[in-house]
C-alpha cells in the first residue's frame, strides 16, 4: 500500500530536506543506525541478521552443500568453479503489500540483482567468466569478490554450492542495503568443512569431508564483497537511508 501523506506533511518533509534536517533529526547524508548480528541460525554454515533502525530487518543464511560442477558446453568454462545460488524472499508478515503473490516481482528483482553481483551467472546467454585460453585476461574472482575456484573440490566433478538465502522479515526501506550488508556478514561468518581428495587412479577421485568443527575453511575473497548504499533523490538533493 502506498502510504498516504497530506500535502502539508509532504511540504514539511521537502522543506526539511532543503534545510538539511530530516524528520528524525538526521542530516541528509546520515545513516540510520544499523545493527548486525552474526551466527544467529545454528543450522546454517553462516548467518547474519541486519536491522536498520526504523523497521528493516533482514536475515541472511548461507548453507554449503556439495553438488556437481556446471560446465559451459561451448567454452568449457566452469569446470574448476564452485557455485553460488541466491534467493531473496520477502516474508508476507513484513508488509501488507507482500501478501499473497504481491512480493513475487520484488523477490525476483532482488534475487536477480544478488545473483548478478555474487555468482556472475544470471543465466545470461553470455558467459562472462574468464576463459581458459592461455593469455586471455583471467578474472581471478567474480565481481562479488568471492573466489569461486576455491570452492571446487574435484575439478570437472564436484564442488561446493553456496546457497545464500535472504529473508526479509520487516520492510522499512533500504532493502537492498540491508541485504548486501547481511550477505557480506553471513559470508564472513561462513565456515566450510575441509575436504581431502584421494586419487584412485584412472582419473577416479574420491573425497572425504573432514568432520572437524575446529579446522574449517573460510570463504576466500570475502573481504572484496560489495556493499551497497541507496540514495534517494528528493527534489534537488540526495538523502541516504531514507524511510519508505
Amino acid at each position: 500500500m502506498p502510504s498516504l501523506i497530506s500535502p502539508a506533511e509532504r511540504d514539511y518533509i521537502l522543506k526539511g530536506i532543503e534545510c538539511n534536517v530530516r524528520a528524525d533529526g538526521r542530516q541528509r547524508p546520515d545513516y540510520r543506525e544499523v545493527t548486525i548480528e552474526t551466527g544467529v541460525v545454528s543450522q546454517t554454515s553462516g548467518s547474519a541478521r541486519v536491522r536498520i533502525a526504523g523497521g528493516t530487518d533482514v536475515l541472511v543464511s548461507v548453507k554449503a552443500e556439495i553438488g556437481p560442477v556446471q560446465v559451459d558446453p561451448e567454452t568449457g568454462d566452469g569446470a574448476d568453479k564452485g557455485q553460488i545460488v541466491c534467493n531473496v524472499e520477502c516474508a508476507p508478515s513484513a508488509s501488507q503489500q507482500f501478501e499473497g503473490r504481491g512480493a513475487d516481482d520484488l523477490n525476483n528483482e532482488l534475487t536477480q540483482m544478488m545473483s548478478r553481483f555474487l555468482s556472475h551467472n544470471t543465466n545470461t546467454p553470455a558467459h562472462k567468466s574468464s576463459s581458459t585460453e592461455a593469455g586471455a585476461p583471467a578474472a581471478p574472482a567474480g565481481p562479488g569478490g568471492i573466489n569461486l575456484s576455491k570452492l571446487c573440490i574435484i575439478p570437472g566433478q564436484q564442488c561446493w554450492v553456496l546457497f545464500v538465502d535472504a529473508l526479509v522479515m520487516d520492510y522499512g526501506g533500504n532493502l537492498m542495503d540491508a541485504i548486501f550488508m547481511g550477505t557480506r556478514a553471513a559470508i564472513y561468518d561462513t565456515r566450510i568443512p575441509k575436504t581431502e581428495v584421494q586419487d584412485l587412479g584412472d582419473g577416479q577421485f574420491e573425497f572425504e569431508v573432514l568432520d572437524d568443527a575446529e579446522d574449517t575453511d573460510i570463504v576466500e575473497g570475502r573481504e572484496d564483497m560489495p556493499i551497497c548504499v541507496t540514495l534517494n533523490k528528493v527534489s534537488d538533493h540526495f538523502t541516504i537511508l531514507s524511510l519508505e
Partner: protein
Amino acid sequence: MDRKRVPGPELSVAPLVEYPSDFKRWTPLDEIRHDPKRQPEDMRPIYLKTGLISQANGSAYIELEKTKLACGVYGPRPVKKVGQVFSGKGVLYCEIKFATFSCAKRRTNIRDPQERELSQILSQALSPAIQLDKLPKSAIDIYITVLESDGWGSCVAAAITAASVALAHAGIEMLDLVAGCSAAYIQTGPSISSSKDSIAASRPPQIFMDADLEEEKYEQGAIVLAYMPSLNEVTHVLQSGKAEGSIISQSVEHCMEACNKIYAVMHHALLESINDNKEAL
C-alpha cells in the same frame, strides 16, 4: 511444468562445435573489436521501423546487426486484471520474451526469472517518460519479442529504444523519447602477466560501446543506460560487474553521447511513419 506443448528431453546439452584448425576465436588480445571495422566507441548500425504489427496500437522493429527484436504496444485500454484497485494513474505493463531460438542455448516457452527481471527494468526505464497521470484507470501493455540476441546488454538497450518508439507511435503522450545504450568494460592488449593481482593495476579496461555476444564473454562489467536526450535526464542505469568509478562515469558519458545519436535514428523513424501515413491516404 509446461503441459501445453510436447516437451523435449528433460536434460539436453548443446552439441560441441568443432572448429577448423585454422579457426581463430576472437579475444581481446587482438586489441581490435570482434567486428574489426568498429572502433571502441562505435555502435552497430541501427535499423528502426514503426508500424510492422498491424493489430497493435503502436509497434516498432529494431535491428542492430544480429540483435533483432519486435515490440508492440496496446493501449491505453481498460484494466482487465482481477483484483485491480482504482488508480488515478495509468499502469504500465511490460513483458519481454526471448524467442526459444534467440540465444545460443534454447530458451523455454515459460517466462524465466531473467525475463521477468528485464520486464521490470523496462517498465522502470520507460514509465518516467510517459504521462501516466493523464490516463486514469487504464493500462498500457508493451510486449517485446526478442528474435535474435547478440549480446545481453545490447538486447536490453534495444528493447528500451524500440519500446519508446512504439509508445510514441501509439500516440501515447510522453515527456520525451527514451534511448537505451549499452557498453562493456573489457581488458584488452597483451598486458596479462602471470601474477593475477597485477591485472587490475596494469591498465584500465577499454569501454566497448554496444558489445556483441563474443565481446561480452570477456567483459569485466557492463552498463546499460536509459536516457531522455532532449530533457537530458537519465531514467535507468543498470551496472553489473566491477569497474573503477572513473570508468563508470566515463562510460555513462559515452552512453549519453551514443543515446543522442540513437535519438536521431528514433526521430527519423517516427517522421518516416508520418510520411507513410500520408502516402496511404
